[in-house]
C-alpha cells in the first residue's frame, strides 16, 4: 500500500473510516454488501447475502451481533484511489457499549433510514452517540424502491433530527444498488480523513476482538497515533498485559498480513493471546518500547445486566457445559459465569448477560454449536443490597438474597427508555410504562405523526416481555432503546415457590412488593398447567418469607394404564414408553415431585398484564 502513496501524509488523507447506523431491518447489511461489491472487495462469486454477518444466528435473526470491519479500495470518478474501512456495528441495545467503541474508530457514519418506516428509537440513540463523538453524518434514505416509501416525510424527520439540508440526504436502494455509486463519492467528499501522528507513541483502540481456535484472540484496532510494526512488543494498557504482535494486517474478507499499520489505519493484531478476557473492547494498545502517556478515554468494564441459571438437563454433563461456556467466553468477553448449585437442578452455572437478546443468543449457541441440552432459570437483574450492618452486597441470584431482617435497602437498576411511536399510541405506551412502574420524563414530537417518549423504568420490568407488549400495544409501530442510568431503592421481596411444602430454589424470584400477590397467583396457576399429575396430590404455594400468598394443586393420578394391549399395540406402547422415558430424563425432582423443565421458565410465558 505504501507504494501507492509514497508521501505518507497524503496517504492518511486518502483514508475514510466510517460505519453504518441503522435500525434493525432498515437494510444496513444489504447496503454493506453493495458497498463491498462496488469497491471490488468481494466478487460476485464470493457474494453471499449479507457477508458481514457471518454467524448463522446473525443471518437468521437479521441482526449483527458482533461488529466486524472490512477494508475496501475505492477509485473515485476522478480516478483517485482511496482506502475505505467500513466498521460494522451491532444493532441491538444489549451491545450499546460495543457500538460506542466502533463509532470511536470512525470519522463518519452513514445514517440509513428506511423510507417507508421512518426514524426509529435505536437509530436516534446511536445517531446521538455518533454526533456526540463528532462523526460526520451522511443521511441516506433506503428502500426508496418499495411501494410504501414516503421519502419526503421521512426526509423531513431526518432534517428535524440532525439539522441537515434536504439536498444532503441521499437516496439509495440496497437491494437494486441504485444510488450506491453516489454514496461512495459522498463518503470521500464528506467524511474527513483521520488525524493522528505516525511518529507519536502508539495508541490503538480495540474496537472488537474475535477468537480463533488456532491463532488465539484476533484483535481489531484502529490506530489513533503512532505506528504498529510486526514483531513489536505491545501492551494492552487497561488490562495490563503484554504480548508480541506476531502478525498484523488489514481486514479484507480474509486477513491480509502486512508489516506495519500507521495512524488512521484499521487492522488486526494476532499475538498468541489465549483469552479474550485480555483483549477487551475499548482498551488501548501501545508499544512496550515507547509507551503512550495515557489511554484512549472511554474504556469501561462491561457489566452484565441480566442473570440466569444454566443447568445441564443431564447432571452428568456439568463438565461439558463448563467447557462449552468457556469456549463461548473466548469469543464473547461480555459473557460471565460462575458455578451455582440448586437443590432442584443440581450443579450448573449462574451466568451474566448484557441483556435478554444476549442471553437468548448464548442459549441458542449452547444448543447449536455444542449440542448442550440445558435448563435455564427465570432471568433476573442484579440488585445492590444494603444490609443493616451498613455493608453493601451485590445479589444476582434470588436464592442469595439475605433474610429480610438483615436487609436495610434493596437498590434495583433503572434505565432510561426512549420509545418512538405513532402519536395515536401515546396512551397505550404510557399505560404500559405506568404498569411497569415507570416514571414519565418527557415527550417530543418528531413530526406531526410521531412522538418520542422518555420514561425511567426499573430494568427488571423491561427485561421480560416489555418489548413484546410494546410492539403488540402499538401494532408493531413503536421502537425502543434504553440505557442504564443507575440503581434506585425499590420495595423488593423474594417470592418463593413451594411444592408439597418444599421450596424450589430455582423458581424463586425477586419481585416488587406491590406485584407479589398477582405474580404469585399467576405463577401457581401456570405451574399447575405445567406439572403433570403424579401419584399423589401436588400442592403448589407461593410464599413471601413464611407467609403463603397463593395456593393451587395438581390432583393425584387416578388411572394410567392402557385399556387394551394386544399384538399391534405392543410396539406402539413401547414407542410411547420410550418417548415418555425421554421426557422423564428431562424432569427434575424436588422432594418426591417431578417437575418438567418448562416449569422453570414458567414466568416467561406468564402474562404479566
Amino acid at each position, binding site marked *: 500500500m505504501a507504494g501507492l502513496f509514497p508521501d505518507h501524509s497524503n496517504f492518511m488523507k486518502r483514508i475514510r473510516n466510517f460505519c453504518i447506523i441503522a435500525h434493525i431491518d432498515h437494510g444496513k447489511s444489504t447496503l454493506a454488501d453493495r458497498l463491498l461489491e462496488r469497491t471490488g472487495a468481494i466478487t460476485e462469486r464470493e457474494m453471499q447475502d449479507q457477508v458481514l454477518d457471518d454467524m448463522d444466528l446473525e443471518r437468521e435473526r437479521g441482526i449483527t451481533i458482533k461488529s466486524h470491519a472490512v477494508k475496501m479500495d475505492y477509485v473515485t470518478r476522478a480516478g483517485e484511489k482511496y482506502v475505505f474501512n467500513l466498521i460494522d456495528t451491532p444493532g441491538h441495545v444489549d451491545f450499546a457499549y460495543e457500538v460506542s467503541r466502533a463509532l470511536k474508530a470512525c470519522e463518519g457514519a452513514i445514517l440509513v433510514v428506511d423510507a417507508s418506516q421512518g426514524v426509529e428509537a435505536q437509530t436516534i440513540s446511536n445517531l446521538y452517540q455518533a454526533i456526540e463523538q463528532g462523526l460526520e453524518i451522511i443521511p441516506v434514505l433506503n428502500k426508496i424502491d418499495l411501494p410504501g416509501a414516503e421519502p419526503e416525510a421521512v426526509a423531513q424527520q431526518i432534517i428535524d433530527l440532525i439539522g441537515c439540508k434536504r439536498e444532503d440526504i441521499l437516496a439509495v436502494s440496497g437491494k437494486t444498488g441504485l444510488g450506491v455509486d453516489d454514496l461512495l463519492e459522498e463518503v470521500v467528499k464528506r467524511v474527513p480523513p483521520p488525524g493522528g501522528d505516525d511518529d507519536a507513541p502508539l495508541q490503538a483502540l480495540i474496537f472488537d476482538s474475535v477468537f480463533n481456535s488456532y491463532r488465539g484472540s484476533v484483535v481489531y484496532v484502529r490506530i489513533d497515533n503512532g505506528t504498529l510494526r510486526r514483531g513489536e512488543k505491545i501492551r494492552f494498557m487497561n488490562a495490563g498485559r503484554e504480548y508480541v504482535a506476531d502478525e498484523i494486517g488489514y481486514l479484507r474478507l480474509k486477513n491480509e498480513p502486512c508489516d506495519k499499520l500507521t495512524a488512521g489505519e484499521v487492522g488486526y493484531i494476532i499475538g498468541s493471546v489465549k483469552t479474550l478476557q485480555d483483549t477487551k473492547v475499548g482498551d488501548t494498545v501501545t508499544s512496550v518500547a515507547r509507551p503512550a502517556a495515557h489511554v484512549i478515554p472511554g474504556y469501561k468494564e462491561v457489566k452484565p445486566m441480566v442473570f440466569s441459571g444454566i443447568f445441564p438437563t443431564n447432571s452428568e454433563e456439568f463438565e461439558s457445559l463448563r467447557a462449552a461456556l468457556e469456549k463461548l467466553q473466548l469469543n464473547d468477553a461480555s459473557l460471565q459465569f460462575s458455578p451455582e448449585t440448586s437443590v432442584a437442578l443440581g450443579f450448573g452455572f449462574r451466568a451474566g448477560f448484557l441483556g435478554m437478546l444476549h442471553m437468548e443468543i448464548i442459549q441458542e449457541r449452547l444448543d447449536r454449536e455444542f449440542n448442550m441440552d440445558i435448563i435455564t432459570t427465570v432471568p433476573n437483574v442484579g440488585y445492590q443490597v444494603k444490609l443493616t450492618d451498613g455493608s453493601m452486597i451485590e445479589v444476582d441470584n434470588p436464592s442469595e438474597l439475605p433474610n429480610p431482617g438483615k436487609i436495610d435497602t434493596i437498590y434495583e437498576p433503572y434505565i432510561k427508555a426512549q420509545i418512538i411511536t405513532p402519536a395515536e399510541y401515546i396512551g397505550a405506551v404510557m399505560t404500559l410504562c405506568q404498569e411497569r412502574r415507570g416514571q414519565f420524563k418527557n415527550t417530543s414530537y418528531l413530526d406531526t405523526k410521531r412522538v418520542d417518549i422518555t420514561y425511567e423504568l426499573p430494568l427488571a420490568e423491561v427485561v421480560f416481555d416489555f418489548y413484546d407488549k410494546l410492539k403488540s400495544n402499538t401494532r408493531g409501530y413503536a421502537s425502543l432503546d434504553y440505557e442504564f442510568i443507575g440503581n434506585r431503592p425499590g420495595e423488593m421481596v423474594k417470592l418463593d415457590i413451594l411444592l408439597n411444602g418444599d421450596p424450589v430454589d430455582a423458581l424463586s424470584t425477586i419481585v416488587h412488593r406491590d406485584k407479589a400477590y398477582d405474580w404469585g397467583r399467576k405463577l401457581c396457576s401456570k405451574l399447575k398447567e405445567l406439572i403433570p399429575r403424579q401419584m399423589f396430590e401436588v400442592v403448589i404455594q407461593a410464599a413471601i418469607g413464611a407467609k403463603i400468598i397463593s395456593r393451587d394443586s395438581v390432583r393425584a393420578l387416578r388411572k394410567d394404564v*392402557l385399556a387394551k394391549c394386544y399384538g399391534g399395540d405392543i410396539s406402539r406402547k413401547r414407542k410411547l414408553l420410550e418417548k415418555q422415558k425421554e421426557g422423564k430424563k428431562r424432569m427434575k425432582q424436588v422432594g418426591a415431585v417431578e417437575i418438567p423443565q418448562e416449569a422453570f421458565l414458567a414466568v416467561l410465558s406468564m402474562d404479566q398484564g
Partner: protein
Amino acid sequence: MAGLYLHIPFCRQACSYCDFYFTTRQDLREPFVDALLNEIGYRAETGFPGAALRTVYFGGGTPSRLPAGSVGRLLDAVRELMAPGPFEEVTLEANPDDITPAALSEWKAAGVTRLSLGVQSFDAELLGFMHRAHDARQAVEAITRVKEAGFASYTVDLIYGNPGQTDAVLERDLETLLALEPPHVSAYALTVEPRTRLGRAVEAGRLKAPDDTVAARHMERAATVLAGAGLARYEVSNFARPGHEALHNARYWKHVPYLGLGPGAHSFDGRRRWENARDLHAYLASAGVGIASVPEHLSDSQLAEERLLMGFRTREGITRTELADRYGYRFSPSAQAALDRFRTEGWLEDDGDRIRLLPAGFALADALVLRLV
C-alpha cells in the same frame, strides 16, 4: 408354544371408537380369503421361527363377517400347512348381529372353541353413540344362542367410561351381563384414538374426552362387581372364571411368539416384530405375501421393558428371575425405590422375586413401568 392371529378386516359399519384396520367393502371378502390362504401357505414354507402353533385367534374387523365355509377352509389350511393341531384354543370374534344358529354350528364344526362377543353395552343410547350394528335385545339373544350351541368358553366385551355414561348405566350393563353368567368378560375403558370418528370429534371440540376420574371409578366398580360374581381379574381388562382365561391373548402378555396374518396384523418371534400394512388392496394385489414390514430387531433392554409393560398387566406380574434369565435385566436402585413406594401404598406385592400389582394398583400399571425404566 406360539399363537396364530388372523386379521379379518370386514365390518358391517364403522364403530366410532375403533382403530383396528377394517373396511366396509363386503365384495372383497371372497378374494380376501384366497389371499389369506395363500399367505398361510407362504408363511408355512418360509417357516415361522417360533415353536409350534397351539392357539388360533380370528380377530378383526369382524371375523363373523367371513363368507360361509371360510373359517373351516382357513383352519384346515393351518392344520395342513402349519400345525397339525389339536389346538388348545381357537377363538373367533363375532358381533351379536351375526350370531345365527347356522353360523354357530358351522364354526363349532370347523374347530372354533371360543367366541368373543363384541357386545360393548346393553344400553340403547350408548350403542348408538358407539355406532354399533346391534341392539340390546340382539346382544342378549346372541349370548343365549352361544350358550345353547354348546360353546363352553366365550367372552363378552364391555366398554365403560364413555362420555356422558353415568354410573347407573354401567351398573345396569354389569347386571344384565352377569345375569347371563358368562365365563369370561373383557371390560375396557373407552380409549380415544386419533384416527377414529370419536378421535376427530374430540379433537374438533365437538365432544368432550372421557373424564379420567369417571373412567377410574368405572374401572374400579366393574372390577369389584365382576370379582363378586366369581370372575377374577387376571389382566387389567380381563376377567374369568377359573379355567376360562384366554390362552391366545396371554401370549402377548407373556412375551410368547405369535404370527399375525392378514392386513394390519402384527407378528413377534421372540426377538423381532413386524406388521402387515393396513391396506387390503395391496394385500389382495400381492396375494397376501407382499405387505410385511421389515422386521424391527429388539434389544434385550427393549424386550425387558416390553415384558414389564405386559407383565404388570397380569395377575402373575413378573419375576426378577425371568427378567434376568431372558433379558439380563435388573432393576436399578431408583426402580427399586419406585417398587417400594408402590408397595407401601398397597398397590403391589413383592416377595423378593415375583412382583405383581394388587387390584388397587392395576389402574396405575403404566405409571409404575415408567418409574421403573
